[in-house]
């Protein structure tokens, strides 16, 4: 510990002095800040240029290969925070799974695959889910500090190289499958790392050696994706198709709140989708857009912008912070202020945090509860997916049965059907969303 007495140079701690400004002076003093906090008014400046422009330059200079979104990926153009265009591929997708979703909320990816199947997408052609992929490792990095830009970059490039070449065994050209990132932390992390890779030649040099050793270069070059795309963006651009082609259940009586994942709209925030038709374009659009398209009542609330309290490290080893924050700032507000029937998330940690940390509120007489699930789980339910077999709500702790009942489905009957299905599973009669042989990348690896 330092032996130096704090001198309050930084103007913090016990040495902080209030300014005692008159209200009108305080207003004047902070006007500049308020103006600049509205990002859409921001002077873009040289630090806020579009990193994709430099990416194309690097490709022209023969430094990298850009995994392009072609017409075959059937892209839909959306607008991001500053009005920039972003192309969201809607077909030929490589599912880049989330460790938290797959480990803890498996109904998240199953609902997504089910929806794709229902829209007529063909496994092995229009999407691929395979075993040759790892976590982005960013949950660990944000939680523990173990890892570094180089390791995160190597993991990013290894996974995305695999996405680029993954179609070969199935007879597809390189780049056939474009990565669709399921986790918002992976999404934020990958965008940050892509920016560093594009801006820093020395970083590219260092990771290139590693990727070369792994046989993960194409023509001696790193493969960088044209866009980093989050699954909620796919859901967002497909929302009207989902509602018009698949929806079977009227959800107009449901009051829905949305929790936006921090690592979706606060990391490399210039890349998040904003839409004037969703919350007036004031807030990131994914999650909310699909709830609106399905006809639910989207209810705004005062702590919309707050994080959920996940904290990466905290949810494991300092859970009192996680549960206190999520109850105080999310669950209680959704319950009391919005009278929500449901809270939707678009990420892994948020759904886990808000879903699991409600019961403990009783310890402090804070008995607030709101069903928590992902946007795509809600969409799948509205489109007739089975609450257990497909949406896998049995893994949720929050009272999801309440929403299921409000949608006119019988929780008890669904549960009974599922328990019967478990007997079939034990007997080896398992139903799949795609041919399991497609997942085996080991045979393709050799």
């Amino acid at each position: 510990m330092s032996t130096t007495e704090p001198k309050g140079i930084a103007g913090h701690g016990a040495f902080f002095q209030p300014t005692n400004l008159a209200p009108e002076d305080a207003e004047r003093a902070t006007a500049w800040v308020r103006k600049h906090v509205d990002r859409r008014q921001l002077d873009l400046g040289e630090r806020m240029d579009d990193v994709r422009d430099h990416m194309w330059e690097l490709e022209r200079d023969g430094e990298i290969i850009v995994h392009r979104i072609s017409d075959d990926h059937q892209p839909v153009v959306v607008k991001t925070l500053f009005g920039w265009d972003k192309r969201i591929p809607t077909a030929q997708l490589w599912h880049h799974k989330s460790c938290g979703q797959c480990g803890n909320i498996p109904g998240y990816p199953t609902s997504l695959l089910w929806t794709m199947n229902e829209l007529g997408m063909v496994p092995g052609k229009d999407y691929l889910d395979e075993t040759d992929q790892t976590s982005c490792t960013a949950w660990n990095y944000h939680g523990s500090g173990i890892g570094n830009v180089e390791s995160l970059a190597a993991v990013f490039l290894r996974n995305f190289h695999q996405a680029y070449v993954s179609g070969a065994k199935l007879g597809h050209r390189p780049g056939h499958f474009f990565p669709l990132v399921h986790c918002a932390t992976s999404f934020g992390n990958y965008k940050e790392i892509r920016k560093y890779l594009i801006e820093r030649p020395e970083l590219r040099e260092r990771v290139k050696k590693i990727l070369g050793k792994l046989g993960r270069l194409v023509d001696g070059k790193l493969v960088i994706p044209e866009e980093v795309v989050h699954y909620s963006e796919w859901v967002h651009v497909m929302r009207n198709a989902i509602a018009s082609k698949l929806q079977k259940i009227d959800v107009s009586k449901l009051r829905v709140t949305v929790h936006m994942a921090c690592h979706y709209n606060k990391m490399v925030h210039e890349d998040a989708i904003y839409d004037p038709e969703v919350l007036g374009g004031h807030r990131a659009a994914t999650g909310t857009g699909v709830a609106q398209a399905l006809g639910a009542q989207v209810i705004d609330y005062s702590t919309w912008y707050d994080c959920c309290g996940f904290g990466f490290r905290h949810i494991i080893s300092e859970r009192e912070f996680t549960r206190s924050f999520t109850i105080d700032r999310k669950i209680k507000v959704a319950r009391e202020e919005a009278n929500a029937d449901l809270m939707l998330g678009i990420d892994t940690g948020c759904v886990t945090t808000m879903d699991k940390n409600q019961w403990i509120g009783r310890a402090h007489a804070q008995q607030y509860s709101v069903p928590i699930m992902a946007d795509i789980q809600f969409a799948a339910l509205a489109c007739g997916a089975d609450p257990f077999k497909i949406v896998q709500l049995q893994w949720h702790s929050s009272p999801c049965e309440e929403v299921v009942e409000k949608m006119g489905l019988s929780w008890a009957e669904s549960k009974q059907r599922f328990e019967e299905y478990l007997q079939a599973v034990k007997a080896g009669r398992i139903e799949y969303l795609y041919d399991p042989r497609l997942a085996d990348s080991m045979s393709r690896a050799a």
Partner: protein
Amino acid sequence: MATYAEMREIYEDITRDFRYEHELNGCLNCGICTATCPSAHFYDYSPREIVQLLWTENVEQVYDAMQEKIWACAQCMTCAARCPFKNSPGGLVAIMREVAIKHGMQSAKDVLRPFGRVMLKLITTGNQLSPDMIQPDHFPDWGPNIQKVEGDLKTLRKAIPVKTLQTTDTAWETSLKTSVEMYTIWEDTGVLRQLETMDENLFDVIQDFIEEKREEYDEWLEERQAAKAD
């Protein structure tokens, strides 16, 4: 207790990180970052303070903040999204944590001890968490309703209609080749060195595991070659 020279070295390690100039551009003490910070609600932690300490080159108090405060940050990056100067206090904290680990600071060792299980899983499998880690016994505060259908984990996982998810000890099935590739990444980027600094026992366990998996992969390759030759 660290000497001033040691504290200076730590401070300079922070500023040498190439991200430093991205993350710190100036500060007018507006406090937007702290007002919007979830950790500031519950800890003696202020992102504005972190920025100010670095901005004013307050070497000793930077060192003090690395004892505990930097570990309070939830890494949500709300501060970064809000800052009118485009600072990222959360990004600065990430750099400071890395430097704390590099210098083997006791604070980092204390804070990260409960994180060992995740580290082990991540380094050895490339997955950060698995269904068997999220069992009611480990999370009594999640309540009695942690899952709504009774049954053994293996069967419940088999009932997920996606082949890659029918696992219990990893979040999804990861191919052996993938894990082996990850070991090279950990070695070549200094991550294993970081681990050794933090927890030698965990490092030893991981080293043994890696060796075993590499042998397993080599055997698999040999079998494949032999099968092809036949």
